[in-house]
């Protein structure tokens, strides 16, 4: 019996997002390739949105749901700002996203989110999510098509796992940015859905700065 073609509301646009938090900074990075099957409809689609001066969200998965979700978050934040007379803090944004995602428990947003930023004490953190809102506050997270390639490298280089001789230490902002560029270069080699350009946000208490790097176009 041959399988019938069934229409699906979901599509995977690929892409990879990485978030690494330090003592007083946070680095959020994502590639900009939009894939559809084996084609590349766009090379310059941003997966990162600055929600607050020191909070950035990155999302891999389906671009339509990503765009909508980011919009919904920003709208809710605006309402919050009108009621509370201040910008939402990192922890509150993180909790709100979880609630938003679970509200769509039975027709989920096809989104794999990472929120990174500086909390009210000045310390950097990232939050990783699944599609229906399960989240965890950590120091290092990656998600998307090259997740299996990148995660073990971050375990080894940021958390110093399996390194019995070396002393675990905190990485500086520059070291973290260099590491993130390296892992994305490696990911581009082996994952067809990752490539084109890399956007990196360097987030500190003072604000966020975005830089762009070229990745391989193949």
């Amino acid at each position: 019996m041959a399988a019938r073609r069934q229409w699906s509301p979901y599509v995977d646009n690929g892409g990879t997002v990485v978030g690494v938090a330090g003592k007083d900074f946070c680095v959020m990075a994502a590639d900009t390739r939009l894939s559809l099957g084996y084609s590349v409809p766009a090379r310059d689609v941003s997966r990162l949105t600055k929600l607050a001066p020191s909070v950035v969200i990155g999302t891999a998965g389906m671009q339509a749901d990503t765009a909508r979700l980011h919009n919904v978050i920003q709208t809710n934040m605006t309402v919050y700002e009108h009621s509370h007379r201040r910008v939402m803090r990192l922890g509150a944004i993180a909790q709100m996203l979880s609630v938003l995602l679970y509200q769509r428990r039975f027709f989920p947003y096809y989104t794999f989110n990472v929120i990174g930023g500086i909390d009210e004490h000045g310390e950097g953190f990232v939050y990783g999510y699944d599609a229906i809102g399960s989240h965890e506050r950590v120091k290092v997270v990656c998600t998307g098509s090259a997740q299996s390639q990148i995660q073990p490298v971050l375990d080894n280089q940021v958390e110093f796992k399996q390194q019995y001789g070396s002393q675990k230490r905190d990485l500086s902002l520059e070291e973290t940015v260099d590491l993130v560029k390296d892992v994305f270069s490696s990911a581009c080699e082996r994952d067809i859905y990752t490539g084109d350009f890399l956007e990196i946000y360097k987030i500190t208490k003072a604000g966020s700065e975005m830089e762009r790097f070229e990745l391989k176009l193949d």
Partner: protein
Amino acid sequence: MTDILSYNGGTIVAMAGDRCVAIASDRRLGVQYTTIATDMTRVFKMHDRLLLGLTGLATDLTTLRNLFNFRLNLYKMREGRLIKPKTFANLVSSTLYAKRFGPYFCEPVIAGLDDEGNPFLCAMDLLGASSNDDSFVVCGTSAESLLGTCETFYQPGLGPDDLFETISQCLLSALDRDCLSGWGAEVYILTPSGITHKTLKARMD
């Protein structure tokens, strides 16, 4: 029983250095999510300059190991010399393809040194499609993770000691993210002067 190649678990990586090669594997033998042995050997010495690693279904691993030992003995008897790595790679490929419509569920990794002492690396899928590489090759349940770690940590021209450290870190980091591989690791370093074998203790889960 969805994926036969991941039924028993297991992973292998091989890397080339400066006139040396390294091949490393995990030690777990499982039946889906149950671990039944933690001292499984996946890498076999074919001769002093040739190592064969096998991932996939354990029963086919055993069968192929015995089959290749047998074929190598025949080759040695007829040719009067040891088989070259690239010839052996061809032998493995043909043997697997002969079972094209009822294959062995095994994905081999071959690491050796040719007569001049230059490294030879080759990985194959279960039907015998081979890919040669100067840098590294991977097979098994943590293949994707290994591709990530090797792509980041590998540099060409490493000596035996540096190669050992590099391949160990690549494998150990990748094993920690795969529940079907792990329970320690074995690393073989092959140089023109001989083979060294080290066992690594890692997260025993």
